[in-house]
């Protein structure tokens, strides 16, 4: 059963194209993941929630029972978890037995706790529980695993399976790793268009293929990045930092090491302190005879370009 259809949807904001002719059909029980930048996902949710209309094309929804959960959605403070859930139970008018369902969301012993005392892991599951109360046909969730601990991810995945018994859940994230854990079909937004990511490649071979990944160590976790996710790399106080959707992740490698490793992935040393992903460059601006600046796509960041590197860059971009 077809739940929602995006037919040649184009969305432009302030003369900037966010989506260009995207088409997507979501059928019941499909586990789809959408890889989008923060701006794209924000506009996508606005289109879903009808806060804005497409510039062209149409969104045809075959169900009215759609729930959304954006990354920064909040929870009422100073009330108990049970009161919070009872409120949404009354709104949804589904008469769900909260006490009975709570253990499936690993919140069985948290019902009397105040919502402001919950951990990030528990809050994310509470959002999921709230969504489950309205028994929606279709759910869109943005980056649910981003801030979770390892244990939190495991519990969340189990809780998500409970929701998926009755609803079709679509996950939107800017991280491929997150989508791989939550979806079986992934579409990636490249140049404002949705392209299906081929996940079948690895299935044929008996041995996993080597995949080049860059890593960043943050607290107790290591985050892996595909080179094409990185906008640019900046050296700050001698530490190389990956810039991804305006967020910075430190790397243990030096700029010279990264330059060698990323040369074949379309990265260019535009300045002593910067390595830029050539795919992300949208404009080259010359403010004076010897001063050049690179403007990146979907980003407010500007990078300096050395005078000596100008010709080399022009050759690469031809």
């Amino acid at each position, binding site marked *: 059963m077809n739940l929602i259809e995006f037919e040649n949807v184009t969305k432009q904001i302030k003369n900037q194209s966010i989506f260009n002719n995207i088409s997507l059909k979501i059928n019941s029980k499909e586990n789809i993941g959408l890889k989008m930048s923060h701006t794209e996902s924000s506009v996508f949710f606005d289109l879903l929630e009808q806060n804005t209309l497409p510039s062209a094309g149409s969104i045809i929804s075959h169900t009215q029972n759609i729930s959304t959960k954006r990354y920064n*959605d909040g*929870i009422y403070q*100073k*009330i108990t978890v049970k009161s919070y859930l009872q*409120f*949404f139970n009354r709104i*949804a008018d589904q008469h769900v037995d909260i006490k009975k369902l709570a253990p499936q969301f690993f919140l069985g012993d948290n019902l009397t706790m105040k919502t402001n005392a919950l951990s990030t892991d528990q809050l994310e599951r509470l959002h999921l529980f*709230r969504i489950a109360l*309205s028994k929606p046909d279709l759910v869109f969730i943005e980056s649910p695993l981003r801030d979770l601990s390892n244990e939190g991810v495991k519990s969340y995945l189990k809780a998500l399976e409970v929701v998926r018994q009755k609803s079709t859940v679509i996950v939107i994230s800017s991280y491929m790793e997150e989508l791989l854990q939550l979806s079986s079909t992934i579409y990636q937004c490249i140049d404002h268009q949705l392209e299906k990511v081929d996940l079948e490649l690895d299935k044929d071979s008996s041995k996993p293929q080597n995949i080049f990944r860059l890593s960043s160590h943050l607290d107790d976790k290591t985050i892996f990045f595909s080179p094409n996710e990185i906008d640019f790399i900046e050296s700050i106080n001698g530490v190389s930092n990956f810039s991804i959707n305006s967020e910075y992740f430190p790397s243990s490698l030096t700029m010279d090491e990264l330059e060698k490793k990323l040369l074949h992935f379309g990265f260019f040393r535009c300045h002593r302190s910067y390595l830029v992903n050539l795919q992300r460059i949208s404009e080259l601006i010359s403010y004076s005879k010897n001063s050049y600046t690179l403007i990146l796509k979907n980003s407010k960041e500007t990078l300096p370009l050395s005078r000596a590197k100008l010709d080399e860059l022009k050759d690469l971009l031809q």
Partner: protein
Amino acid sequence: MNISMRKINAIFILRLQLILKNFSLLMAPLMAIGYVIAFKNFFPSNLPSLRALTLNMGIILNITMGGIMFGSYPIAEEKEHHTLRVLMTSSVNATEYFIGSLLPSLLILTLVSIILVPLSGTSWQQVSIINYLVITIICTIISILVGFTVGIFSHNQTSAGVLSLLPTVIFTFIPMFKGFNKTISTISDFLYSGVIAKFINQSLLKHRFTWNLFDVGLLIVWLIIFSIVLIYAYRYKHFD
């Protein structure tokens, strides 16, 4: 537009819980109670003019300042914590949200207005309870509507505080100080909160209050004006 009593009831219960746990929001009615108690103890004289002044200030503080705060702060807080979007995408419409949010505020502020009369040392024999309830309820609703409009234009609680300053000053202090200056008194007569001051003064000083067409019309006009302003503000801004 469909209005569901079930959803209004759910919002009413939630909002009541949240208001009762929000001490900074309760400051306005508590200030009004504290002010009336303090004034009565500092000036124990039984002069009707002093009692009228005490009751006037307490009620106006409660209704205008409290009403505007009770209307604006919760919306601004919901925007700040991104809970309003969750609610509005959970099949709740704006009318249900406004009615569900208005009722608990109205209940609390009306209860405080009732308590203020005996606290100020005024007997219910001197003040017609029916007239008192009609005037305070209508004025509280108008103040909450002003608060809702301020909340719509606020991004967070700080901006709600700043934006609500002007209407609070106009509707609270002009009727409070109407006795000090003739111009202020004339302006006060055209404000909805001025009707409260007029009602208290006439009830306590002249021992009778009679409705006249001007006061009835004034309350209706202010109610219509702020209802229209709220509708246009919502259509223009939604809950962005």
